[in-house]
């Protein structure tokens, strides 16, 4: 256990002000990696330093920058090469057939038939499912801690995964996917991979050892608040 004397509390203001010599700086750096209390104090000191901005006189913000930001963002997205992994929200907006496709993929995987759809929709969905399977996707069942399945995950070797939840989230809620590393400095820290108000989301699992899903308020959360369960990824 860390004794209070071990905390370099007196050095923290100088650490934030970059006033320490290199040895002291490294000492604080090392301590911060394992001390949440001091990390909180450093964050507070940074907030205090940046509160200098609060005392600046009010000035109206001109309209130009926002328009320029929009233009720059549009240019960037137009110039960007077609991504093999568009975000969930973009994908859902552009390809509204995806939820159906994923649902069909799930049905195919478990061998059941509970959905009737239009012929073209089924064909598209089947094609998508075949596409995932043909690309070497491996099917994993998403289960809660008590072993109850709540969805499926198709894991592709290229680092992409398709998560299919058994039912839609309640109104005002979303499903949010989280990746976790088993070791390293961020071991066990959940990182948001994506969210959906529907039943399907495509995420990138590269760099994580497990993928979990939680139910969150609309808009998502910075950390899981109502986790459903976590599934270990196959070792690549």
């Amino acid at each position, binding site marked *: 256990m860390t004794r209070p004397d071990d905390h370099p509390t007196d050095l923290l203001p100088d650490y934030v*002000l970059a006033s320490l010599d290199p040895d002291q700086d490294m000492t604080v750096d090392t301590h911060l990696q394992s001390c949440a209390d001091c990390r909180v104090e450093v964050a507070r*000191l940074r907030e205090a330093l940046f509160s200098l901005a609060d005392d600046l006189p009010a*000035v109206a913000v*001109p309209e130009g920058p926002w328009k320029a930001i929009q233009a720059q*963002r549009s240019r960037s997205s137009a110039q960007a090469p077609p991504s093999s992994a568009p975000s969930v929200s973009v994908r859902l907006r552009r390809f509204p057939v995806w939820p159906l496709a994923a649902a069909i993929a799930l049905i195919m995987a478990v061998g059941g038939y509970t959905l009737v759809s239009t012929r073209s929709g089924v064909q598209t969905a089947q094609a998508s499912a075949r596409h995932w399977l043909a690309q070497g996707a491996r099917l994993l069942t998403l289960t809660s801690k008590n072993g109850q399945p709540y969805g499926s995950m198709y894991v592709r070797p290229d680092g992409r995964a398709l998560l299919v939840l058994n039912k839609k989230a309640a109104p005002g809620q979303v499903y949010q996917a989280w990746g976790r590393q088993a070791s390293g400095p961020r071991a066990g820290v959940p990182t948001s991979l994506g969210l959906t108000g529907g039943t399907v989301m495509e995420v990138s699992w590269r760099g994580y050892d497990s993928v979990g899903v939680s139910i969150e308020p609309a808009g998502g959360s910075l950390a899981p608040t109502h986790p459903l369960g976590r599934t270990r990824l196959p070792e690549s």
Partner: protein
Amino acid sequence: MYAAPTPHRSQHAPAPLEPPVTSTEPTPLPLPDTAHQQLIVQLRHEHEDALKALYDSLSGVTYRVCLRMLGTPEDAQEVLQDTFVRLADRADRYDPSRGTVRTFVLTIVHHLCLERLRTRRSRPVREHDREGEEAFDLPSQAARDPLDAALVQAALTALPDTDRALLEDMFFGGYTHAEITARTGLPLGTVKSCLRRALLKLRERMLP
């Protein structure tokens, strides 16, 4: 002599640019940081509306920092723009354990402004660029009579606004401790002590 500036404006501040504008636009209500954090999550997943909401909430303070550090509306607007483009690109780097979203955004803008200031300072200085700046530079402490220097230092460190002014020099002016020492004639140890006192005073404003 290094006269203590007014509390909220260091003497190294750029000349006043334009009078503060009292906007007729309604000022957006500040959002709680939980709302900012939720917008960051949405931004990570490419919800463009989230970027607009963050811009509406944080562009005011961001622009003020730009103006204070860079001194011209043209530069300030460019960096304001760059800040939010960078925010959109780097939203996944936000770590709530390291501070609020607001501080995350201010860290970005501060860094971008410092880059500009350093680029400016690395250029050759023309004579007329130095006008008005000479008044801020003091002869080095060593060039003065030791007794005078000691008296000056004692007077300066006793002034309540000096700590804050030096902190503003460092933060908004982008000056290193050594540069502040060179500009004020104060010993490096004194500069560090003043900065520390000023920061701890600001820290008292924070809860808990």
